[in-house]
């Protein structure tokens, strides 16, 4: 338990440092790389909680596919030179501050409410493939519909992208 919490704090510090770099670094490629770091840290958190499947999927989907695409686009567009668009702040800074304050406040509130200090939250279900599958696809549970709806939503996104790209070319 002691070793676990030491690992948690080291990893949490790493994760937050990387997350700050995502926002603070002026080089878009380094920002994206820091985001990859955050994803990997999150994945280790999932592993530490026993949610192996979610942890692995986190790496495969976010770090391995989505962030590669991000890097691809960043490199294709401006080759890593600092973007003058980032200097235009305007209204976005106060709005971002307000939004992050609200988020931080609600997270702190939820944390204070839910997790008493010193009480480790232990997940009763280990996140194996079978158990997640049973939980998601059980017709007696409310999640099947939402799950299928999400996949339809993703499909709509893909079809929409294809349609948009098609229109531009002719």
């Amino acid at each position, binding site marked *: 338990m002691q070793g676990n919490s030491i690992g948690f704090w080291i990893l949490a510090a790493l994760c937050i440092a990387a997350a700050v770099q995502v926002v603070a670094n002026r080089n878009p*490629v*380094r920002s994206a*790389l820091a985001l*990859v770091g955050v994803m990997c840290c999150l994945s280790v958190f999932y592993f530490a909680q026993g949610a*192996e*499947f979610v942890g*692995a*999927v986190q*790496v*495969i989907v976010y*770090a*391995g*596919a989505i962030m*590669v*695409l991000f*890097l*691809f686009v960043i*490199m*294709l567009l401006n*080759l*890593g030179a600092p973007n003058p668009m980032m200097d235009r702040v305007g209204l976005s800074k106060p709005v971002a501050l307000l939004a992050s304050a609200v988020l931080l406040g609600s997270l702190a509130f939820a944390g204070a409410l839910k997790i008493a200090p010193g009480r480790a*939250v*232990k*997940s*009763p*279900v280990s996140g*194996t*493939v079978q*158990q997640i599958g*049973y*939980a998601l696809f*059980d017709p*007696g549970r409310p999640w099947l519909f939402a799950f299928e709806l999400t996949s339809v939503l993703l499909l709509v996104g893909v079809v929409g992208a294809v349609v948009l790209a098609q229109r531009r070319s002719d």
Partner: protein
Amino acid sequence: MVIPNFSIGPLHLLDVLPYVAIVTILGVILLLTPFLVWYERVALALIQDRLGPNRVGPRGLLQAFADGIKLFLKEDIRPSAIDATIYYAAPVLMMIPALAACAVLPVADLRIDMGGGRIEAIPFVVGNVNIGILYLLGLTSLQVYGIVLAGWASNNKYSLMGGLRSSAQTISYELSMTMAVLTGVLISGSTNMVEIVRSQAGTVADWNIAKFLPLGFIATVVYLIAMVAETNRAPFDLPEAESELVAGFHTEYSSMKFAMFFMCEYASMLVISGVATALWFGGWNSPHPALNFVPGFVWFILKVVAFVMVYVWVRATLPRLRYDALMALGWKRLLPIALAALVLTATWDAVRTPADKKSGWPVIEAPHDADKPVARASNAR
């Protein structure tokens, strides 16, 4: 071959086994790389009707060592306008996933005498984890960062083109590869590498390539094509196409940094061949029960070496693909075929499973009831 479960002082065989596996597997992969380079050059020479390396050592066997020493002693050139941190980190970022992927490769099943005549099969693997195949997919997908970042940090047009090509290519072929792997997982009924290999015990007909005919075979072919593309080997070596991009992503790399890219290519070739062996070709299982007297790791190594031969053969035979042809093959041919194989396998599996074998949904407690019992299986439905 039964091994007694012995212990030296406080060290018991079963506790030490994972560490023995780490040292053995990493050692074999790193030590095999020079011989693999030699193997490839000799095989290429045979196919192209040349002599190949024949100057250093008997039959040129030490040629790769001579090349290694040469690279080690070369000047470490640091180009001026690079992003230094990322430039130096890139070869390392490529090496780590390649070596870490060995952790779930099931090499052999040891028969260990647990005392009292009870013999148990203990897999010779570093980490016998339940999500083994997902771990492998995650690591192979991370490997592209090394190439992309090397190309970008070099601050060179050709390197950048190589990096961009690599990221597009890896994403495109990863989809087909994942679909093919999922088909294999469906056939075996497990995501654990050891279980996948154990499910293929018996004869050649029990290997995943021969199950669900022809679906298993189709998925295997898709996997084999995607695996060559994932390792950026010919005919999919567009990231380093020397006739158009100088040397692609590693143009600006010299001495040991270049050697690391070179070693990565061979290490990941070995690892990916090992995955193909475990997933489709029965892993450590012999092709026929009559050949069971040959130890499992021999079969595993033979199969991996055969795959490396396929890699070399393909490289010597096929010309490099044009870029649009590469994308068309990945998205318009392989992906639909892999998807169809996956869906058909799932349907076939669902139809042929007898109704009494279909288990009911086990009742799983909601995650926030921390004090309730873990999971109750119930077939009441």
